[in-house]
């Protein structure tokens, strides 16, 4: 054993997550985060930009000969109705991202609000919110998603996102509540109260900064979950029939027996895109976790 002087200082530095700009810098230096970000941007942005440069005429069904393998005109082949799979992808990816964005934002913001209110103010409100959190957590959300999606006939991309977001708040709410409960016992909350800060100010300026990295990681997680939930529902035939998402691409390819007809480019394209999106977002999430929770970096 070596004698360590100024022990509290060293211990403190070890358990402190980097703050503010330092946080972003160490985030970018994190290998998982960087790789994840690069893959994600590549997969997500190419279709978004390509969409603008595509001639609207090529979006029609029958714009290309049907069931063609990848060629110069249709880089990813064409499907059974003569649409270019590549053109479909440029519509599907932004739509799927939109679902993820709306649902994750909704879930994270709602969850954070519920968690903060429940944890900080306590009392009867807390009891009520805690019970509803537990109820939402214990029923399998997928089942209710299927139920709702089946009953809301003719969903759009946006309503799909809202339905998914409706089930995305309970987990962050529970985590935020638990964190707030432990944070509010810390001395600085009392000091802030004695310094004249109001409850809302304490939540925003004293507690929120501690939660931000976690909320960021949760947002990414919810983003993946929402994209995958959309795909799952769409594959079951409950997706937005009139629009194109990654899930709907798989649904249509299944519907027209792409596998049986050996039109591999049709179903492999959305499947690979989905896997890459999910994988890259998970890496980003991991990076977030490692940077905001230095204990996780201990591993060699």
């Amino acid at each position, binding site marked *: 054993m070596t004698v360590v002087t100024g022990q509290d200082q060293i211990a403190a530095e070890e358990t402190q997550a980097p703050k503010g700009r330092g946080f972003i810098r160490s985030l970018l230096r994190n290998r998982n985060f960087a790789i994840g970000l690069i893959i994600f941007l590549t997969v997500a942005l190419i279709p978004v930009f390509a969409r603008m440069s595509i001639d609207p005429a090529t979006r029609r069904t029958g714009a290309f000969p049907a069931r063609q393998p990848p060629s110069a005109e249709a880089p990813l082949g064409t499907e059974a109705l003569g649409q270019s799979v590549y053109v479909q992808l440029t519509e599907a990816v932004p739509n799927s991202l939109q679902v993820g964005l709306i649902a994750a934002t909704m879930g994270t913001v709602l969850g954070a609000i519920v968690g903060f209110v429940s944890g900080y103010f306590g009392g009867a409100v807390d009891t009520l919110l805690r019970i509803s959190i537990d109820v939402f957590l214990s029923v*399998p959300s997928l089942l209710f998603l299927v139920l709702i999606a089946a009953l809301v006939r003719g969903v759009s991309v946006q309503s799909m996102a809202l339905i998914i977001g409706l089930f995305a708040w309970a987990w962050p709410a529970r985590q935020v509540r638990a964190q707030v409960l432990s944070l509010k016992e810390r001395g600085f909350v009392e000091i802030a109260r004695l310094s004249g800060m109001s409850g809302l100010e304490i939540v925003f300026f004293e507690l929120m900064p501690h939660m931000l990295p976690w909320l960021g990681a949760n947002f990414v997680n919810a983003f993946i979950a929402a994209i995958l939930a959309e795909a799952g529902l769409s594959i079951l035939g409950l997706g937005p029939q009139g629009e194109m998402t990654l899930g709907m691409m798989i649904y249509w390819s299944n519907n027209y027996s792409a596998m049986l007809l050996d039109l591999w480019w049709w179903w492999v394209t959305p499947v690979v895109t989905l896997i890459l999106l999910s994988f890259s977002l998970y890496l980003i999430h991991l990076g977030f976790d490692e940077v905001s929770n230095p204990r996780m970096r201990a591993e060699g």
Partner: protein
Amino acid sequence: MPRLVPGDPLSAVFMKMSEMGGSAGIPELVAEYKRMFGLDQPLGAQYISFWREFLQGNLGYSISIFPSKVTDIIGLALPWTIGLLSLTTIISWILGSVIGAVVGWRGSRFRLSRPIVLAALLLYTTPYYILALILIFIFAFQLNIFPLSGAYTRGATPDLSLPFILDVIEHGMLPALSIVLVSLGWWFLSMRSLITSQKGEDYILNAEAKGLKERRILWGYAFRNALLPQTTGLAISLGHIVGGAIITETIFAYPGIGWVIFNAIKGLDFPVIQGGVLLIIVAVVVANFIIDILYPLIDPRIRYQTAGGG
């Protein structure tokens, strides 16, 4: 609760009937059916009668497959779901935990760590229905080894004969594989990070200082401590089995609960939906209850607490 949503179940049935060329739209018949299912009553009364019947063990009759009871339909589907999912979940849990423990313990000393972790990451982030599609493509279409859908060959009569059991195993292979592989990734990753975080703990250092064998420290010390959160995970996912099965079972047309509920939802067959949802919630509650019972067996600290009376 499902009845609060818009949509008239009977019109869905009659639409189906008319598609099949049946005599649809006869008003008297509609009224008669409505009376039978109690749909002419206000919602509150429907709700009360549901619970009254439920307490007597009666979940009512299915609307779309009329003469059969909901309990019969669910009873028929339940063994398939439980058989397929609990088996696969437990297999992947054991495999994932053990491999995760070894890889987490050896860390970077183990040359295969990196590729294994990468593979697990890929598996975990791939949704199981996507993996199911890939498996279907490889095994059912390309290699033609395993059948595409169903739980047994159409037309075979379920019995306990050897050929039938083999048939069931053959049919269960693909859905099972898709579930095992995906959840394997998750169990592996969570066990690995649990073990890694245990590695630096004082009690491990102490065990090393005492000169205990490495094998003993890993399995008797670190693994045992990591088992508690891992078991919680297992219990939770067992509770969610019934509900989580929907997509897999639907893709493989596997006649389990998920498949039944999915079809019931499509046909607005409320009694079956109600029964299914009820079953799922009961499963979650029972799983939570089992966790509470199991905890003291795994973690003695919890036993002390209850004995000491807090």
